[in-house]
């Protein structure tokens, strides 16, 4: 296990200590969806801390395709709409096989569908693209994922204030 990974694991476990410590499936619940009120009184009884823990539903309500429309307009991003999610780009991608954060197919998917919450989680990964162009060679639909990654990194930067809030 590499240093980075150890650090990540420590970070994860310490985050678990703070929030939703007693949730058995802690690993599968996103931090942002656990609500632990610092002070919660119901009928005169103190319910703060673990006893007031709420897990918000992970259902997506906002399908904001603004980024998608931006990507379509940016240079080389015009083909993103052709993607049919076969996964060939990720299959050939040398970065994806080394870094689990980077998955071109998934990035295209969340941008196309406008899953803003997922984009918020994964948008940083787009800068990992090394631009080797193997994905564009492999793509059976002519999506040009390499170009789409270029357009995407620009669009994510342009929307950074919304994505990192």
């Amino acid at each position, binding site marked *: 296990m590499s240093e980075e990974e150890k650090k990540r694991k420590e970070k994860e476990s310490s985050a678990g200590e703070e929030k939703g410590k007693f949730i058995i499936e802690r690993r599968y619940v996103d931090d942002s969806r656990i609500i632990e009120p610092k002070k919660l009184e119901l009928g005169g009884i103190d319910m703060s801390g673990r006893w007031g823990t709420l897990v918000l539903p992970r259902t997506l309500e906002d399908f904001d395709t603004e980024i998608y429309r931006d990507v379509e307009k940016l240079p080389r991003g015009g083909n993103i709409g052709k993607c049919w999610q076969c996964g060939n780009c990720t299959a050939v991608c040398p970065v994806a096989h080394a870094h*689990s*954060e980077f998955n071109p197919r998934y990035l295209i998917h969340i941008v196309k569908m406008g899953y803003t919450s997922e984009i918020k989680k994964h948008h940083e990964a787009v800068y990992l693209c090394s631009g080797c162009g193997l994905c564009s060679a492999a793509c059976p639909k002519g999506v040009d994922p390499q170009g789409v990654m270029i357009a995407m990194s620009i669009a994510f930067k342009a929307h950074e204030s919304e994505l990192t809030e």
Partner: protein
Amino acid sequence: MDSRYAAKLLSRLGEDGWHYGGLPGLQWEAENAREGDRKTMLQVVEELRNDVRFEEFYHACINCGNCTSMCPPFRLVDFEPRIVVQKVMHSKDEPELLYQMMDQYIWSCFQCYSCWEVCPAHNNPGGLVAILKEIAVRHGLQSTKKALEPYSKILYKIMTTGTQITPDMHTTIALFKDWGPHKAELAKDIRVERAAVPVESMAGVMDRSWRVEKDTMRELMVIQKEAGVVDAVSHTLKDVADMVDDTAKEAGAE
């Protein structure tokens, strides 16, 4: 591409010839599973496939996602019945897939069987999870302890008396770990408060009706022992099993 690259790819394959990356959203952590004991992995798969219910609960999965769409836990946590069936499907050839799930993943399911209702292939992901949970208890896997700990007293109560919660548990001492720090405060005047409830039967509830006859308890514990429940629990919650043993001895069930 060059051979050095191929060698590099080869270097990261596991013993079984697989390497997994990650898929955001699915929280795939195969590397964790790799650290597990391969013998246990194979045993888990074997026990699952040999279970009497397995044939009824599992047919084949075409990845349609109907089960996931109906799954209540899926709304809250990253748990997908579809993934469960998929991993069960691949378990024969890739036991680590299944084993990886045994630790925490399966405890998200609470057997509502919504998935069973809707599956076009008549699989029962919830049922498969139930079998897997039993196997996890039997093998005393890490997360099982964590999952069962809050219920240890209730477990003890069920195993010895057949009743879950009894009024004598509401005391200022002998607190339950999962009942919270305010329990003592709440239970302080409980007898007085209950006495004020104008229902005749409450008196009986408080004093007599929940008490279990010694014979019944003895019989119950013999059944638990013979059925292997005590053994199963002893792998995960040793102290509970010990307490049950002690109570059994007191009741004279030997």
